[in-house]
């Protein structure tokens, strides 16, 4: 039953409506900059929602999901490099590659748990990173410039607003998909495995298979985020797979509220807006300090992350969603 008074209902509704109206506002005020900023936010939200599916609900702390963003981006980049401009081919290739890598890597990693799981996912992501760096014919360290965005037929990615709505539609579809999965038997087995795997095994559930399937689904949605990222920036770079990106995705999840479906979306808005605000913060009260903030904004992000972990573990969305339920 949907409780229309609960924060779990109206926060996502308001936020998604805000996303939908944003290009209109940007068009009216002539600030097209907002569309690009929020495109980035949507892409990170999509990746974080995907990661949260295994991290928040399955208890699999993957520190290597940036790998799949990178794979999606390189699928677009490498195909475009060879003259394949059809976006549906890009999309199919990205999902296929992402699914393939996730199946092989997942088969190894889900056998481990706890700290080892964190380390081994990180190691696989690093492998992908170094692989991308060593691909000299595809730009290596410098990355690969993509001449034009994917050609998707009637959906013209060349138009920033169209791309924005495509990402938004994908995010909503992903939220709907994960909501359905989590409400189904599969989702309950996954959540049960998180709280007590031994008990689930004793009940006769092949938990490894469930964890692997969840990992592959999550990775493929992340690849989708990479596909959009490459289209958005017209660039594929090893830095998309850097371990700090995996870290950032986890920060987004915890910031928004781990184990809540919509939390990562809120987390992505908060983190990326905060980054943006810190970089351009000029209230003119004490300019020397403001200059330090603009230049060394990562310092404040770092402190903010530490404070969130120490004192606000439930996250922004988690706080409201739970406060209303009590």
């Amino acid at each position, binding site marked *: 039953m949907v409780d229309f008074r609960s924060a779990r209902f109206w926060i996502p509704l308001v936020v998604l409506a805000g996303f939908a109206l944003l290009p209109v506002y940007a068009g009216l005020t002539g600030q097209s900059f907002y569309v690009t900023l929020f495109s980035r936010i949507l892409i990170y939200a999509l990746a974080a929602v995907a990661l949260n599916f295994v*991290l928040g609900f399955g208890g699999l*702390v993957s*520190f290597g999901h940036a790998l799949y963003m990178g794979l999606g981006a390189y699928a677009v980049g490498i195909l475009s490099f060879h003259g394949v401009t059809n976006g549906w081919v890009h999309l199919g290739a990205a999902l296929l590659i992402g699914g393939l890598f996730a199946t092989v890597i997942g088969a*190894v990693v889900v*056998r*481990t748990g*706890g*700290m*080892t799981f*964190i*380390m*081994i996912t*990180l*190691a*696989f992501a*690093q*492998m992908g990173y*170094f*692989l991308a*760096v*060593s*691909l*000299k*014919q595809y730009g290596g360290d410098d990355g690969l410039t993509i001449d034009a965005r994917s050609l998707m037929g009637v959906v013209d990615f060349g138009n920033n607003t169209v791309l924005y709505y495509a990402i938004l539609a994908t995010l909503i579809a992903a939220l709907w998909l994960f909501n359905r999965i989590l409400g189904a038997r599969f989702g309950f087995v996954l959540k049960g495995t998180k709280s007590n795997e031994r008990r689930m095994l004793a009940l006769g559930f092949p938990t490894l298979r469930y964890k692997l399937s969840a990992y592959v689904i999550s990775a493929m949605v992340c690849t989708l985020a990479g596909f959009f990222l490459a289209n958005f920036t017209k660039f594929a770079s090893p830095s998309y797979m850097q*371990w*700090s990106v995996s*870290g950032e995705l*986890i*920060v987004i999840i*915890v910031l928004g509220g*781990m184990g809540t479906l919509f939390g990562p979306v809120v987390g992505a808005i908060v983190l990326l807006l905060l980054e943006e605000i810190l970089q351009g913060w000029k209230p003119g009260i004490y300019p020397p300090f403001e200059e*330090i903030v603009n230049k*060394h904004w*990562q*310092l404040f*992000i*770092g*402190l*903010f*992350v*530490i404070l*969130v*972990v*120490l004192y606000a*573990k439930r996250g922004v969305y988690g706080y409201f969603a739970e406060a209303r339920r009590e």
Partner: protein
Amino acid sequence: MTWGLFLTQVLNGLQLGVLLFLLAAGLTLVFGIMNFVNLAHGSLYMMGAYFGAAAFAATGSFIAAGAIAVVGTLVLGFAIERVALMRLYSRDHLDQVLATFGLILVFNEVVRYLWGPSSIYMNAPEALSGQVTLFGLNYPSYRFAIIAAGLTVAAGLYLLINKTRLGMLIRAGASNAEMVSALGVDIKFLNTMVFAMGAGLAGLAGLMAGPILSVQPGMGEPVLILTLVVIVTGGIGSIRGAFYGALIVGLVDTVGRAFLPILLQMTIERSIAQAAGPAIASMLIYLLMAVVLALRPQGLFPVRHG
């Protein structure tokens, strides 16, 4: 591929190995005893390098630089443990990963603010700027000194851990921390000691790496990831595992990068080998770690209980 070249690469691998061991020793004990994932360990290494470089530039004495780097990072480790990290020991790994990830961002920016964004250079001390001759092979004496210093520290750690009372407590803590605290040992103090000691060793590694690598913001991260590979391969919590793991990773990485492309060129077609060689070489240690974990999830040299 001559014998001399091979020996040089082995020595380089050994040198990377001992540096990694200095980092891995502290990290693996913190893992083993406090069950704590400290991603900021690489930042302590970076701070050691900066402290050392700054002190060397100011005093001109490498010994003074060494003392300042080690003591500085020791105190820094003590401070961050007491202020922030101590509260996270009882939290889950996710919180620890996140908080220390935040610390990395903080340290990188502090360094960028204090010393600027570009790398600073540090020379090897005058006395070690020459070369030594080993088996008819010339090798930079500074790199040789790193190997010697690293092995000395390893021997010292072995004695400390196996022959002293403090070492006994550390070993006991690594196999069952709760039991040790139930027996009346001040586990909080022990934790801080271990953490600070690990920080000091990381600082020492940073100082020694200063003259051969560039000292720059973010220099700790690649090393941290190698160190994580070391301790996971060697077995979490085990000093012995950290030692052998560090040497294995150091040798496989260095020797693999130097010779794998050549070996591949002898076996497969040249153009493919040229493309694939460096890629496979840089992924080699991660492959090694994945294979080890898939076959022996507890690592190659796990802590022996009982």
